[in-house]
């Protein structure tokens, strides 16, 4: 046995080397806690956005894996069937686009249709594989002439819900302006006439009952309905 013989221990000095750990106690100080946790969440969001694989597709599933429509949960924050005049409905587009204005559902139907069986993951922890159909948000952004240098897409909903996603997420090939589920027009509870469907985000990012869409560089005070209350803004999977 070849032991290394060293001088007698300086235990007090060794103990003092652990003092940086005391900084962890800052989290116990109530006025600082919110700011620390906010920074932690922002770090996680930043890392998520930085590592987002723009061309990588979320897993898709066969029709046999899709849960029956009756077992696809209705989730809503306030009202399941908000007042919407479906005959007069259009998506109002504004911001950094060359062709702002109102877009009718027929114009969305005219874009190449994508159907996909993907996993819908709720922040609460449940998940369900559903069948969705619609137009790529990316195609719609081209239709509206979105400025390629813009940073965010932000939406407002008929139930006063609102959301925003970054351009990488908006341009992802599986990000849909969804008007169909299970081969049928969206029913009211799932967001008729139009919702976001984004297999690469949690459910709360996938706003329903869309009314307006804007392409912007800066998000105002209203960034994300749940994000503003403490959920991750990014919400990416």
């Amino acid at each position, binding site marked *: 046995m070849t032991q290394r*013989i060293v001088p007698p221990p300086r235990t007090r000095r060794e103990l003092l080397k652990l003092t940086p*750990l005391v900084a962890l106690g800052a989290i116990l100080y109530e006025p600082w806690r919110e700011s620390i946790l906010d920074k932690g969440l922002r770090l996680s969001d930043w890392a998520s956005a930085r590592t987002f694989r723009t061309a990588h597709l979320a897993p898709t599933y066969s029709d046999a894996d899709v849960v029956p429509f009756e077992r696809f949960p209705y989730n809503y924050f306030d009202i399941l069937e908000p007042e919407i005049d479906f005959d007069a409905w259009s998506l109002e587009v504004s911001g950094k686009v060359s062709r702002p204005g109102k877009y009718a559902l027929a114009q969305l139907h005219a874009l190449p249709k994508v159907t996909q069986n993907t996993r819908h993951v709720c922040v609460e922890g449940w998940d369900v594989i559903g069948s969705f159909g619609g137009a790529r948000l990316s195609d719609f952004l081209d239709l509206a002439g979105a400025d390629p240098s813009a940073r965010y897409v932000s939406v407002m909903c008929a139930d006063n819900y609102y959301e925003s996603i970054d351009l990488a997420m908006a341009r992802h090939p599986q990000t849909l302006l969804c008007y169909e589920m299970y081969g049928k027009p969206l029913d009211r509870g799932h967001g008729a006439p139009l919702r976001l469907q984004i297999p690469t985000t949690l459910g709360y990012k996938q706003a329903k009952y869309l009314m307006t869409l804007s392409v912007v560089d800066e998000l105002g005070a209203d960034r994300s309905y749940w994000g503003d209350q403490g959920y991750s803004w990014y919400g990416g999977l």
Partner: protein
Amino acid sequence: MSSPTDVVPVARWQEKGGVSKVAGYEHPLYVRLAHWLTAVSLVVMAASGLRIFLAFPSFGSKVPQEDFWNPPPGITLGGWLGGALQWHFTFMWLFAGAALLYIVGQVATGRYRMVLFVPRDIPGVWPMARHYFLRGPKPAVDQPYNALQKLAYTTTVLLGALSLVSGLALYKSAQLPFLVTLLGGYRLVRIWHFLALCGFAAFVPGHLVMVALHGWQNFVAMLTGWKRDPEYLGRKGA
């Protein structure tokens, strides 16, 4: 192979009155930092994780929903799902950072050899368990960690790896679907993540009881790095 104690620097000196003293530097700074960072972040991750689980306390479908277990809110952290997620997504960095610090340090210094459980240690497990739990005779100690300790501490490293990998698979299921596949599919990932928590829940109380019963010197060593008169350096009796 050389003895595992080779990696523990030893100090021998004489105190006033000519009393010989010996101590082993068991825990370099990176081990102690990693240990206490893990201790704090593990508690936060467990308590906030239980609050997150409370939002959907099931491993099955949403419709219909069958609750598995509703954790008592008193042992949870965060107050509500969003608050718990903030704690979880903040302290996951510390938990992962501590794990990285420990693994890199252990490999770089070669100290993993004295605590990693390997097949050679298997015969030593039962005599040690018999001593601890059934008041059997105490096996001879010639290493910093006995077989049972190696088994326990190696298991915690695996539990940490399981929590990190399953957590990452849940957090980035669309970005890293191969991790989901590796763990047997999406529903199983959540179960693995929970099982890792169960493993820690089994380890931590045992760890604390052992330290309370046998290990004051071990506790001091985890603070200062130095263990006085350790058995494997020839302390008489036990």
